[in-house]
């Protein structure tokens, strides 16, 4: 397939357009983002990093202790010897193997769907003209404002009617698209995608689908990566709805499985924390992988082909 033409014309158009294009990072001394970070930059970043990581690290510390030790003061600041015992208990009590698999499927599908649908809808809202555009956009933003706690009852009635309880589609389909995502992509594309670029492609007779494939997707890649990651994380940690739609013995997601942990009259905090750690760990690994991709995407820039 000759993928070239549209992006070639795109580059031409962009250069003709003047203000945009030329995304080379070399040269340009003194410009903000080419600068290497100074010592202060690193110091501040390290401070933020420590602040960000502390609760997570402490979760791991708590998971490596005993329930009794956690009630004592001062709380433990370093790892104890119970990590694997607690992880083992959490793993077996919470049916984590199946849960992890389910959650991966659910979060993956939702992330994929959200990114795809949000990008094309966001593109339409950002760059295309059509009747009712503003109204539809307002409606989209409006849907974000519905407090999620309340749709649970009618949503559950729908799911029950369809006999979807305990099936993964019950948690996938209601969140497969997101107004947030549409709005996010719209804001990003309206800034990052030069209108001249699309016009030039149109001049060359490119169809809308082709423009999406060859111009919008490459331009939107950094934002798509960010959105995909955010959605994945969000879907992974979603709790309020899955706990109603799924049960622990049916098709639990991780968060549903974790509700069965520790607890009772004597909640075992260390096992609960071990469960929380187990539930977060795959996410962190995925985050690290996706994180690299994002960095890659961002570094490559949008229209590099």
């Amino acid at each position: 397939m000759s993928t070239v033409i549209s992006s070639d014309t795109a580059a031409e158009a962009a250069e003709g357009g003047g203000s945009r294009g030329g995304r080379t990072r070399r040269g340009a001394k003194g410009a903000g983002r080419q600068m290497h970070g100074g010592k202060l930059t690193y110091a501040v970043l390290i401070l933020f990093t420590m602040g960000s990581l502390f609760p997570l690290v402490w979760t791991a510390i708590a998971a490596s202790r005993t329930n009794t030790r956690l009630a004592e003061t001062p709380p433990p600041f370093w790892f104890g010897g119970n990590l694997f015992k607690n992880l083992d208990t959490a793993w077996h009590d919470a049916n984590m193997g199946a849960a992890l698999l389910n959650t991966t499927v659910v979060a993956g599908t939702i992330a994929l769907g959200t990114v795809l649908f949000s990008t094309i809808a966001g593109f339409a809202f950002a760059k295309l003209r059509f009747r009712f555009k503003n109204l539809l956009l307002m409606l989209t933003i409006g849907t974000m404002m519905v407090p999620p706690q309340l749709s649970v009852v009618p949503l559950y009635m729908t799911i029950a009617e369809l006999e979807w309880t305990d099936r993964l589609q019950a948690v996938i389909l209601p969140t497969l698209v997101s107004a947030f995502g549409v709005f996010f992509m719209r804001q990003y594309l309206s800034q990052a995608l030069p209108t001249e670029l699309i016009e030039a492609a149109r001049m060359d007779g490119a169809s809308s689908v082709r423009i999406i494939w060859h111009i919008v997707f490459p331009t939107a890649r950094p934002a798509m990566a960010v959105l995909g990651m955010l959605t994945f994380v969000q879907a992974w940690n979603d709790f309020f709805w899955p706990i109603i739609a799924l049960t622990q013995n049916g098709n639990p997601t991780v968060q549903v499985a974790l509700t069965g942990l520790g607890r009772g009259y004597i909640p075992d905090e260390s096992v609960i924390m071990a469960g929380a750690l187990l539930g977060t760990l795959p996410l962190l690994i995925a985050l690290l992988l996706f994180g690299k991709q994002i960095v890659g995407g961002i570094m490559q820039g949008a229209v590099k082909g």
Partner: protein
Amino acid sequence: MTRPFGSTAGAAAPPADQGGTAQRPVAKTPDPAGPRRRAWRSRRYRWDIKYSPYAFVAPFFVFFAAFGLFPLLYTGWASLHRVELTDPTHMEWVGMHNYSRLWDDEFFWNALRNTFTIGLMSTVPQLLMALGLAHLLNYRLRGSTFFRVAILTPYATSVAAATLVFVLLFGRDYGMVNWALGLVGIDHIDWQNGSWTSQIAVSSIVVWRWTGYNALIYLAAMQAVPDDLYESAALDGASRWQQFLHVTIPSLRPTILFTVVVSTIGATQLFGEPLLFNGAAGATGGADHQYQTLGLYLYEQGWVNLHLGRASAIAWTMFLILLLIAAVNAVIARRLRKSQ
């Protein structure tokens, strides 16, 4: 409905095939297939221009209609009824009673006030810090991936685990914050029981969870700012701070607007953090409801007190408040644009 290049472009350039046939888009050669085919093509092109936008937004709206609109309308309908969670299918018409009742409900106003102050205390510092953080991350850095992932870990941490840690941090007798304050000679603060202190504590959880997330969104947008803008600014002798102020911020305007809108919505619906900050004590938001937000009050009415109808009315009121904010926002924005 006039596209800037709609009809003229359609007439001037024959549209490329969508890739199904061997037709290459490069070809600007005269079409051998004759006028009929050309007419078909140009009609198809016009259709593409006219209708494809709807096709692009359709998936979103189809799913939204199925899983978003129905709940929304149902909720609106329920808000006009007396419905109890003990029997959600039994509805008794009460008209606007649930709304007029809210008007006289001091707990509602208290929750509205708390939502506003906590929203302010969490959103403003969060976005400012995120902006600064994104700016720093935009430098060339050793281990930039590490930093980016690290600041996103709070977002990946479940609210439950995070709040548990913060409850320990802000503990009255053995909390680490009080311990640190004690080192500089400040007496123990009963974070949970003071109205400002508890709101600060709840806000700090929100700030902690979302700063990195917003920083990443800003960073993605900053990467899309063309370099030459910085170059010319640098040539004009602008300092880094001035570049940040006069190049970065204006270029980021749509993204900033986006985060402000999303954070405002998030702040209005704030629920998990104040709920869990109260530990085992449920949705009261403290002994004096000092950190009960609208989302929490909605939850208390619906899921603790089991009044679904009233909870629906609170939900719709929240919805309307947000629409009101959006409208005011739009009017102001329009005024500003006109005055410029």
